């Protein structure tokens, strides 16, 4: 954890971590005895489910809950469905998890679904959404959203992670190939790629415009890339795709290129694992692998009240189980010892102004939090720029009174959406 420096007249600087010069090969985690998959749809007991316990599945088979479901997941192994049940995330969104016991005897041949990939966005939307890197095909296939620029991210968006940089430096050819496939699918003309400016590399991406991002957090967040490199200001409350910008992980393009080359889905997700002592491991695991298998591979022992963070220290989420599966969009896993978990407080704001000085979006956080604490969400959005927040988490990081500011802001945005949806 990066602490405040002794002299801090200026803002504290949080820097992104750079890729090590001599690339470490990822440690490969073997396929475990059971895998769990997340399907973003709630179980509806009034409907007849298409899957049931004991069903045999093939490697690459598409699994859906009901006939009319659009949400799906892809089984990364051949095996049998052991169990499926409800899962709810940190905002109470309900999903379904499916546990699959792999049948290792069927690992090749008849146990695998052969894809016949066509270069159409509809096909990609139907079969390729769950590729490692989570390509946003749902967004690209949506006719109501006009995308005119695709930004490939080779610069990691959260601290500590080097996954995106690793993929970008290691597989530039596949990224270019994947970008070409995506270009033919979507007919989007402009492709850009983000790369940390301090990263020393000879890699070239041909016709793809390279955006050299600053090393200071939060320069690689979508809103900051749009502001600093694309000369667009993200209007308050809007998403980048509303402005025609779509962000794609480099890893998604690598997966895409491999699918069209091998005509079979791929399931190996690369991510950065940071242990309790800060040691960084690069890991390659099959999607669905429980994190507990990864931890035991590296000898990381999870104690009571430790914290497992998925997705980075500033913007990630904490999971309640160490059996949480490896997900297609999971770039970083951090294990935090309970002794270093910072304590928050319910002290009111003392108006010290540190959040104001650090906020990249010029939000009056000191005023905003007073309204959020009082559940005045409409007022907070109208007068104190709740919608402008780019969700970097720096305000809560520096807060002297240790108010969970970013937590309040996310709750406020969530409640505001609910309020407006019900209005």
């Amino acid at each position: 954890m990066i602490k405040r420096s002794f002299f801090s007249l200026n803002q504290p600087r949080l820097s992104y971590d750079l890729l090590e010069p001599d690339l470490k090969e990822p440690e490969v985690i073997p396929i475990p005895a059971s895998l769990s998959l997340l399907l973003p749809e709630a179980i509806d007991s009034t409907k007849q489910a298409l899957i049931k316990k004991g069903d045999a599945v093939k490697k690459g088979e598409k699994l859906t809950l009901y006939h009319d479901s659009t949400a799906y997941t892809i089984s990364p192994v051949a095996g049998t469905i052991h169990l499926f049940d409800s899962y709810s995330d940190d905002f109470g969104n309900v999903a379904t998890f499916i546990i699959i016991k792999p049948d290792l005897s069927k690992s090749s041949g008849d146990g695998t679904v052969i894809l016949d990939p066509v270069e159409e966005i509809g096909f990609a939307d139907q079969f390729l959404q769950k590729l490692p890197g989570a390509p946003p095909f749902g967004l690209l296939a949506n006719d109501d959203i006009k995308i005119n620029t695709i930004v490939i991210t080779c610069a990691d968006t959260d601290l500590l992670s080097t996954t995106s940089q690793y993929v970008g430096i290691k597989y530039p050819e596949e990224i270019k190939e994947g970008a070409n496939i995506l270009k033919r699918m979507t007919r989007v003309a402009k492709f850009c790629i983000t790369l940390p400016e301090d990263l020393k590399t000879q890699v070239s991406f041909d016709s793809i415009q390279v955006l050299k991002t600053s090393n200071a957090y939060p320069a690689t967040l979508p809103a900051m890339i749009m502001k600093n490199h694309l000369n667009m200001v993200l209007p308050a409350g809007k998403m980048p795709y509303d402005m025609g910008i779509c962000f794609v992980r480099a890893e998604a393009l690598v997966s895409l290129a491999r699918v069209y080359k091998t005509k079979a889905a791929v399931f190996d997700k690369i991510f950065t694992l940071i242990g309790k002592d800060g040691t960084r491991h690069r890991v390659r695991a099959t999607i669905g692998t429980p994190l507990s298998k990864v931890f035991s591979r590296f000898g990381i022992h999870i104690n009571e009240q430790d914290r497992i963070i998925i997705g980075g220290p500033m913007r990630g989420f904490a999971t309640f189980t160490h059996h949480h599966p490896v997900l297609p969009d999971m770039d970083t896993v951090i294990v935090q010892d309970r002794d270093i978990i910072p304590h928050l407080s319910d002290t009111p704001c003392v108006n010290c102004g540190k959040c104001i000085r650090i906020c990249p979006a010029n939000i009056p956080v000191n005023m905003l939090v007073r309204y959020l604490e009082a559940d005045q969400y409409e007022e907070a959005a109208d007068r104190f720029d709740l919608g402008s927040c780019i969700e970097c988490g720096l305000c809560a990081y520096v807060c002297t009174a240790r108010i969970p500011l970013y937590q309040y802001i996310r709750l406020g945005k969530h409640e505001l959406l609910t309020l407006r949806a019900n209005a």
Partner: protein
Amino acid sequence: MPTNKLTVSHAPFWHDGDSLFKMNLNILLALLPATIFGIIQFGAPALGVVALSISTAMLWELVMTLMAKKPLTVGDLDSAVIGMIFGVMLPATAPWWLVVVGTFVAVVIGKMIFGGIGANPFNPALIGMAFLMLSWKVMFDFDAAYIHYDFSFTALAPLAALKSQGAAAISDLFPTGKLIMGKQVGAIGSTFGLGLIVGGIYLILRGYIRWEISASFILGIIVTALCFNMAKPEVYGGPAIHLFSGYTLLGAFFLATENSSSPVNKIPMFLYGFFAGVMIILMRNIGVYADGTVLAILLLNLVNPLMDAIRPKALGKEVNHA
């Protein structure tokens, strides 16, 4: 296999390690050089006043939180800071009841009834001070307070002498070097200018006070004092005497910068500091008080919410021009 219960919470999962306790501890530390000098200069009574002031300020907060059945917050040292700042603004000869009443007004009326830390619209120490100055004006006559002391320097309160005799008459009595080194009569912690400056710079470098306020405050003092001085040099003192006597430096680094009652946006911070400086000189030169620091800063506290509405446009915020 029994599974461990994990800690679950929302991002961010890091914190820079700062806390109110650390912030207030640093403010207390920064005030120490000037306070220790005052205790050496004015003797044991000064130590008594400061100690009583800190302890009673903390006690009042403890009593109030117990009575209101609120969580005990005295450990964040906010009341200790109020008590210390309040204590060093008193003359060393202040009687015990004055200190106790003053800290009661400062902590209970200045802070607790508004809702405790962070909710006070005015600097609590100044509320207590203003109350005492209006109620027992004679106690703040520094010339009378130290009548039994035997000093090796001019035993006249510089600002009072300036007010009554004019700049020309006292021009040789208060050389700037001696003022900075604390060779003057005044409140316990306000005489040692060098110590206050060192403490203030320490707080600025640590990021615990906002340099914009201190810098513009001093600029306001210098500019206004210079204007008066150039108009009538025989009546109005120059910037040096105004800057290094009275509560000026205490105001620049410890009073005007109080978090809750000062602005946080850039332009408002400059305006706030500058006009506080201007008001002080106006009060000293035109008003009836020899030292207007207390009331001037309270006045600027009053307009702080209005000023702080001047703020930069948030990212992506649409402005509808009428």
